[in-house]
C-alpha cells in the first residue's frame, strides 16, 4: 500500500515535470538544427513556381540550407534582417528572415556575395519565405 502511494506520487511528479517542460519548451536551436535539404535558391524558387502544392509537400516546415547570391538586404524598424537571395527570376527570390532568437556572427551582407543560410521554409507568396535563418559557414 505504501509502495502504491510512493509510486503514484513519483508518477505525478514526473507527469507535472513533463507538463512544465512541454509548456516552456524552447524554440528549436537553429544553429544545431539538422539540415533536411540543401538546395540552391534558384532550384527552390523554381520548385515552388512550377508546382506550388508539390513543393509545399516537400519543403514546408523543413530545415533548408539554401545557397545563393545576395540580391538585397533589408532591416525593419524593429531590427529584423531579411536577406533576399537571387532566384534567377527578375522580380522575386528567396527571402531569408534572420532568426531573432539566435546569435549571429554578422547581420551585414553585401549584394552579390555568395552565402548559405539555413532556416525553416514557410512556403511561397510571391517570393519563397524562410524564417528563423542562420548563416552556415
Amino acid at each position: 500500500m505504501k509502495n502504491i502511494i510512493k509510486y503514484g506520487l513519483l508518477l505525478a511528479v514526473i507527469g507535472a515535470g513533463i507538463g512544465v517542460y512541454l509548456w516552456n519548451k524552447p524554440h528549436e536551436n537553429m544553429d544545431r538544427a539538422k539540415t533536411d535539404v540543401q538546395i540552391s535558391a534558384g532550384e527552390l524558387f523554381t520548385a515552388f513556381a512550377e508546382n506550388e502544392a508539390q513543393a509545399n509537400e516537400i519543403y514546408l516546415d523543413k530545415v533548408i540550407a539554401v545557397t545563393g547570391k545576395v540580391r538585397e538586404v533589408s532591416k525593419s524598424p524593429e531590427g529584423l534582417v531579411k536577406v533576399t537571395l537571387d532566384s534567377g527570376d527578375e522580380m522575386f527570390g528567396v527571402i531569408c528572415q534572420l532568426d531573432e532568437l539566435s546569435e549571429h556572427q554578422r547581420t551585414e551582407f553585401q549584394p552579390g556575395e555568395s552565402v548559405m543560410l539555413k532556416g525553416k521554409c514557410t512556403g511561397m507568396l510571391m517570393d519563397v519565405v524562410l524564417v528563423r535563418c542562420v548563416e552556415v559557414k
Partner: protein
Amino acid sequence: MQKFFFLLAVILLVGGTVNAQKYFTRAGKVTFTSEAPVEKIEAVNQSATAILDTESSRMEFAILIKAFQFEKALMQEHFNENYMESSTYPKATFKGQIDDATAVNWGKDGSYPVTVSGDMTIHGVTQKLTAPGTITIKEGSIAAQSTFTVAVADYGIEIPSVVAENIAKEVTIAVDVQLAQLNK
C-alpha cells in the same frame, strides 16, 4: 507561373487604366492576439505581401501562416498543427477595396480614416469582412493600418473545450504595412 499570377493580379487591379498607381510591399507586419481569461497569446508575422491600386482603391494581402512567430514553441506548434492546419492551408488572403473611394486624396499628404470590405480566406474558408483602417500618405509612400477581430468559428477552426479558457473565440488581427510604388 507565380510571376504570371502576380502580373495578372496587377493587371486586374489596374482595371485597364493607364495611369493607375500600384503600391506594393513584401514586408508587411501582421500581429495576431488572442486574449482569453487565462492567458494572452500573441504572434507576429513580418513577411505579409500587400498590393494597393490607388486608382481603383482595390487591395490584396497575403500571409504565410507558418511565418507567425510565437513566444512559446508549444503554442506555435498547436497553432499550426491543431488549429490552422497550416500544412494543408499555408496561406491566408484578403482581397477587397476601400468602400468610399473619395475618402482618400492620394495626391496629398495626410492621414485618412477608411473602411475596407472584401473577402477574407483563412483555413480554407472565405468570409466577407469589413474593417476600419487608416491610410497615411507621406512624401510618396503609403502606410496602411487596420485592427479588427475575427471569430475563429467562422473559419471552421474548432477550439477544444479543454482549452476554451485559454484561447479567445474572437482574435484580434492588426495589420501594418508600408507600401512603396511599384516600378513595373
